[in-house]
């Protein structure tokens, strides 16, 4: 009896949480697509500076990580492929797993660490220092002022970062291909491109847009629901990271399954 109550409670809590995220995303969508036509201009300036922070700022670390991931993928697949004398397939193995899965996912993880946590900490601190209240007493909607620019920035920057991550991963694979498997740089890149269908890239990009939405919604929601006191900001930040990682993987699973069954027909 107690177990079922507990399960029931966690399910309703989880659904309520998803509901809160959806309503946050919905209000941000309203301020992006509807409000500009009702005389409430979009904060493009804030969105751009946010995009610089979340997007351009992430490039160095993301490049390094995805380059290594590409190299690791090449090593791991070569370990198996060389048994069949098929080491030439390293290029396509790396290209497909990067664009379909690891490019978007690793990008999302890096962005969660850099920006999702920062959103929660920034908004959480503003909540604790009454800055959110100050916005409201000045008749400025915090969702309009703080959250919407973040959504716009993330949904634009995540696909861009993902494309970059894909390229860096393929480059990492190429380093292995050139040094260990008789490829030239040009031939490695050529066989990567030959192995890819446009669909591989677009499914990855669609996922990355969804990841961007998820990370922003969780980060901002955790920030806005921060309680009183500095330690609550830390708690919100931790939760933002943990919940984001979980939900990104969940969204990944849902969309991968969706694409899988769609491509069957």
């Amino acid at each position: 009896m107690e177990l079922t109550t507990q399960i029931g409670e966690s399910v309703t809590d989880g659904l309520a949480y998803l509901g809160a995220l959806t309503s946050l995303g919905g209000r941000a969508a309203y301020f992006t697509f509807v409000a500009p036509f009702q005389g409430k201009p979009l904060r493009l300036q804030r969105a751009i500076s946010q995009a610089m922070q979340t997007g351009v700022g992430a490039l160095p670390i993301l490049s390094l990580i995805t380059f290594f991931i590409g190299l690791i993928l090449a090593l791991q697949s070569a370990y198996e492929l060389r048994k069949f004398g098929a080491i030439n397939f390293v290029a396509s193995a790396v290209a497909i797993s990067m664009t379909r899965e690891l490019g978007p996912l690793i990008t999302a993880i890096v962005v969660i660490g850099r920006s999702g946590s920062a959103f929660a900490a920034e908004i959480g601190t503003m909540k604790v220092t009454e800055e959110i209240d100050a916005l409201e007493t000045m008749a400025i909607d915090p969702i309009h002022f703080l959250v919407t620019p973040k959504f716009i920035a993330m949904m634009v920057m995540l696909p861009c970062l993902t494309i970059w991550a894909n390229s860096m991963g393929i480059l990492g694979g190429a380093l292995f291909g050139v040094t260990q498997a008789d490829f030239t740089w040009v031939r490695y890149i050529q066989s990567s491109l030959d192995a890819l269908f446009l669909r591989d890239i677009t499914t990855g990009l669609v996922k990355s847009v969804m990841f961007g939405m998820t990370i922003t919604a969780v980060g901002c929601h955790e920030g806005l629901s921060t309680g009183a006191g500095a330690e609550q900001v830390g708690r919100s930040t931790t939760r933002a990271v943990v919940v984001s990682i979980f939900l990104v993987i969940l969204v990944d699973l849902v969309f991968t399954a969706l694409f899988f069954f769609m491509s069957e027909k």
Partner: protein
Amino acid sequence: MEQSSSATMTLETEAMISLRNLRVSYGEREILHGIGFDVMRGETLVILGGSGSGKSTLLRTLVGLERPSSGEIWLKGKNIAAISSGEMDEIRKKIGMSFQGGALFGSMTVGENVALPLREHTKLEDSTIEIILRLKLDQVGLSGYENYMPSQLSGGMKKRAAVARALAMDPEILFFDEPSAGLDPIIAAGVDQLILELKQAFHMTIIVVTHELASAFLIADRMVLIDKGNVVAIGTTETMRSSTHPRVRQLLDRMAEPAVSEKLDYLQMLTEEHRHPGR
């Protein structure tokens, strides 16, 4: 003294804010149990009370940050306890609020902070906003600080900058949450002086929540004492000083809690505390 009190008497004919049987709850716990009083146009009303008395909740409710569970708040002819958020936003443009810690936006300069409401709600040109900004900073004694970040300001200067931001839209009502909290006595006196200057210069309706008695008696026209979510006493500074109400005397004479209560009262208070911890 006589003259100034008669001058305020003529001003105090019209109620700016009227509270009627206002109740506010956080979840199950009721914080304010039916508050009712009027704030007159042009007066400075100080809301006094100990910590946990509900005075901050009252202030948050007055500026629309908390929704009352029942009762009415009449402000500019509208019951803000029951209006849409769009209408509330219109009213909020006519009020200014200075928060306890200043609540300046840390990522913006002082100037950007003060100019924010103007940029958000008016179509004024940058040059006009620049002039208003200088004027407001001048009024609070912060001329020349527009390019400083809030983190570079001292506690007193932050409060002054927050007041400048609250004044940006030329509000009719100004709210202060604990204006002297966390400031040394000299700086706090400066903030009191600023409130007095604002009152004289603009005849603004000013509502101050505080537990600083010296400051309260200096700036107030009238005072409201809130205790455990109820209005205990209301009146001019003189009536408060001469009041014989035990709660008023306890606060004014800075008596410790148990000393004023009879043994039985004390026992009841303890059980009350026990039943509603933290109230």
